[in-house]
């Protein structure tokens, strides 16, 4: 989902940066506040960041014959709320933009918006919905993480379609083209991300039931199950 350096027109690049900045700033504020109130959660925050690091480094093959990578933002969004993921996603994207020429500084705002804002917000919302619908813990996590991943790539397709509308078919035709590249490729990867997130959550639920309960991620009964 990394839009390459220089591949968004100046106006779009600035627009997405302006759109993402307040989320990153507010995210930093919420992280600071939480660490001050509950210093013991610092390690778990590290786990959320580390998970994003690992998953966004793994470029996996897909049935479309191209490669892409998961985002890993669902885990942190469910644990700490979606706002915390904006700064964490930014760190990962900066690392890749500066050292790897993967993504870019001019497209950083747009990439933050898809991976570190839309994805986490979608994941957190889907998790809440699934909980209200009383779906089992594992299924809720799976749906949240995999759909959050997929929506990140749908967002990237939208961003590119807005920047490069098709001369004949406009936004819709262009979106269809970018979505074929990104969203279809992403489907098996989103499933993988969902499964991996459930595996990590299973481990957390086993070793850290108290923290998860405190963070309102699970209820008491689910931990015992």
């Amino acid at each position, binding site marked *: *989902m990394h839009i390459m350096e220089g591949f968004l027109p100046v106006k779009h690049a600035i627009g997405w940066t302006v759109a993402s900045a307040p989320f990153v700033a507010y995210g930093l504020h919420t992280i600071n506040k939480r660490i001050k109130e509950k210093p013991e959660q610092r390690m778990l925050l590290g786990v959320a960041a580390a998970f994003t*690091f690992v998953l966004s480094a793994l470029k996996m*093959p897909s049935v479309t*014959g191209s490669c892409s990578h998961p985002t890993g933002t669902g885990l942190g969004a469910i644990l700490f709320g979606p706002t915390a993921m904006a700064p964490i996603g930014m760190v990962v994207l900066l690392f890749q933009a500066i050292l790897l*020429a993967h993504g870019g500084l001019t497209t950083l705002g747009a990439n933050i918006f898809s991976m570190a804002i839309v994805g986490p917000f979608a994941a957190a919302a889907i998790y809440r919905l699934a909980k209200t619908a009383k779906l089992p813990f594992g299924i809720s996590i799976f749906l949240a993480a995999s759909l959050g991943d997929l929506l990140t790539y749908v967002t990237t397709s939208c961003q590119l379609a807005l920047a490069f509308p098709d001369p004949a078919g406009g936004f819709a035709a262009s979106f269809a083209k970018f979505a074929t590249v990104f969203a279809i490729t992403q489907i098996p990867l989103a499933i*993988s991300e969902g499964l*991996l997130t459930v595996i990590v959550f299973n481990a957390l639920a086993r070793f850290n039931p108290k923290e998860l309960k405190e963070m309102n991620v699970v209820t008491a009964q689910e931990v015992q199950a």
Partner: protein
Amino acid sequence: MKRYQNLLMMIAVVVLVAVPLWMVQKPAPGPDGKEVEIFRGADDQAKDVIGTIAPGYQPWFKPLMEPPSGEIGSLLFALQAALGAGFIGYYLGVANTRSKYDKAISKAAKC
């Protein structure tokens, strides 16, 4: 079922990665004799799509630093994954030991 759940999910991830490798066939070289590359990055393909929609578009900014070769690129990606996986492994190890320790203590307290 519950016991094998994690193992089954890991197997499913491996299958999801392996199936495309086996399923996608390399197409024959095009009329210009150039080999068709498969499993390119989706990001790269998006660049090609931009090229067909807006042929005149010129990127207006270049990456400040590019890995000098594909090998160095994969070194950095491996480093990124290793850092993350290392931390997660460390944390789960600590959490596992702590939960065992806590259980032992509460057991001892009951006696």
